[in-house]
């Protein structure tokens, strides 16, 4: 074995060991049966303006909207939070390429939903408010059954909206709870079913689960034109 190949081998062993330890460290939360805390390689971090506790609430409600089943990945597993991490930073690919000025303002050249940060924070506050009102604890601290109940009320609250008012949030403050739920649901679907280039639909798993083959997998009866 040459010196060069020995160094390469040593480097590969080191990197593999590092990867293994990283995976093991990430797997620890499984001991608590909490898949949403699983540290996937692309770890999501809250966007500027939200703290980790608020982001955790978003993670949890996304998994209420799109829970894992025996045949379908959960929101977290499908990379919805990775998608949102990019979307809330206006870092979705492609937007910058084509939304050239003057079609959008220069300060909003990135693609995504950073402008909806206030709505996300309002949604968190409404969820926490409903949770505190019913169970004397925040949304993240609820048991699965309690969380299901609060999410149900959150999704239906257009009829029984208690009208939370939070100072300092303008447009978001006018949004009904039902509208906020629909916004989160809309973005959950986008993260789940968009092309993986946007951060979600990890490994195309969501598409495979529903049988979507996209155009580059031709129907057998229609072979590509030569």
């Amino acid at each position: 074995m040459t010196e060069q190949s020995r160094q390469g081998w040593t480097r590969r062993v080191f990197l593999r060991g590092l990867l293994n330890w990283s995976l093991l460290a990430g797997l620890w939360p499984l001991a608590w049966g909490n898949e949403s805390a699983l540290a996937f390689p692309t770890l999501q971090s809250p966007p500027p303006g939200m703290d980790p506790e608020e982001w955790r609430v978003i993670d949890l409600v996304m998994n209420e909207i799109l829970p894992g089943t025996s045949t379908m990945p959960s929101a977290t597993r499908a990379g919805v939070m990775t998608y949102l991490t990019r979307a809330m930073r206006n870092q979705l690919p492609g937007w910058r390429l084509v939304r050239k000025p003057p079609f959008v303002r220069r300060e909003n050249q990135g693609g995504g939903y950073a402008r909806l940060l206030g709505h996300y924070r309002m949604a968190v506050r409404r969820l926490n408010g409903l949770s505190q009102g019913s169970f004397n604890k925040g949304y993240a601290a609820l048991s699965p059954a309690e969380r299901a109940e609060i999410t149900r009320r959150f999704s239906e609250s257009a009829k029984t909206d208690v009208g939370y008012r939070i100072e300092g949030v303008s447009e978001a403050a006018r949004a009904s709870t039902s509208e906020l739920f629909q916004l989160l649901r809309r973005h959950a679907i986008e993260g789940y079913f968009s092309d993986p280039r946007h951060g979600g639909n990890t490994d195309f798993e969501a598409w495979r689960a529903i049988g979507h083959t996209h155009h580059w997998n031709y129907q057998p009866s229609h072979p590509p034109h030569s």
Partner: protein
Amino acid sequence: MAEKATTVLIVGSGASAGPIAFELARAGIDVMILEKGDWCENHPLNEDELAQTRLEMYRPSGELDPTLVYSKGELVSESSRIGQSFYLVGGGTVRYAGTSWRFRTQDFRKLSLYGAVPGSSLVDWPLSYEELEPYYTKAELEIGISGNVGEDPTEPQRSKNVLLPPLKGDSYQERLMKAARGLGWHPFRIPLALHSQSSKRTGANACMLCGWCSGYPCMYNAKSAVSLSLYPRALKTGKLQIKTRAYATRILVDARDRVTGVEYMDLDTNQSHVMQCRILVLAASAVQTARLLLQSTSGRFPNGLANSSGMVGRNLMFHIEAKGSAVFDDDFHQGYYKKVGIHDFYFPQSGDPFVNHRSIQSGSKPSPIAFASSLSGYGEGFMQALRKGFLHTQELQCMVEDLPQLGNRVTLSATRRDAWGMPAPEVHHAYHEMDRHALESAILRMRQLLEAAGGREISVPKTASTNITGRYTWHLMGTARMGHDPAESVLNSDGMAHDVANLWVVDGSAFPTSAGLNPTLTMQAFSFRAADRLKLAMKEGRV
């Protein structure tokens, strides 16, 4: 700052700009197109559902370039993109599904057939199907339309069949056609602006049947967008120039009220320029054409250029549409959008409380985000519905004529301006009662066909949706209607403005009625005819 003049200046580069630019350039006439958008990039995101339908590549910002929408007097949208479909060379033809019908002979004579309708400004066209027929043939040949002759029971006569063969069908098409025949109906394959085979004439490739047509640029150069079928050949003549990112803001006239040019803004520099011209052609779609005319006031035309009749902006028409879906036992993969048409009920039946013409057309299975968004709910039940339904769900669509009404119109906002300081357009619209009855009737037929085809969990609207919401941005017509009487119309049957001899309009603004069919091919035929009429007028010194 004045620039070099051109002979014919065209504002807009979409469906109806292509034919006239093509014809005039090939006749050796200098033509310049001002297009607010840009050429469509050949980009991987062109087939990306999120990018095209949610992030809306190629569409303007509704905040910076808004259209305000009023439905029955109530503001329903402050930032709609009605009338500003796509900022692209080729306009909507780059991303449309390609449905390309000839209007029926009866569509040109609604008033004569049905009589006056209270509340509607229903009129006959000042030209007949027979006068337009040769230009339908020309459009089908030069643009590239695939389909079959003799299947549609309402199809008008044609002098020549120049259609490319119909596209290959799939199992959904077969299922629908069998079900329709079982009901005693006469289904047919819809003519489409998709090349079923490659064409040396247009330079297009054969369609790959990938199914990503409606709402997406074609990745395979098989869709007959005018930017593919017409502009390359026209550009080769050396007589056509297309100036992109050029926003026309005002039409300039001289003391004799003849057009002398157009003031436009260069969107890269935000500088204003003037392009002088001998003849101006507007092809910017019914909202933007009306807007430009209304903005261009002068001594003789205080209410907008060529508007002595007061009709500029009025009689705005869309179509009313409804979608239905059902779940089937078969697996369906993505297919091109419009496969099967039903026209057994195109014309009103005896006793129907409406005079609207209606079309039933197959849709296609929705793509993942659209499908998931169409379902309600969340949680485990929702996930099961996604998995169970995606491969098995298909759609139908019905399209209903929107009767013209004087009060349905485009105006200029007194308070809201776009990012470049120009008054934002306002759209005011309310459907006629007959429109609603016609749509409800069509919805019943849709349900009948879905049931006959074996569909389960059929979902159709319970009632006709009340009014526009600001999301419907296509099939815009009527705002500079043509007619014989200058007191009640803006244009003559050639597309020339009654009031201004060197001003022509060739887009859907010119249409007096909307038919129950997608209007693109008719706009293109009208544009080809206008080109012939304009060449004659130039030759005779009338312009």
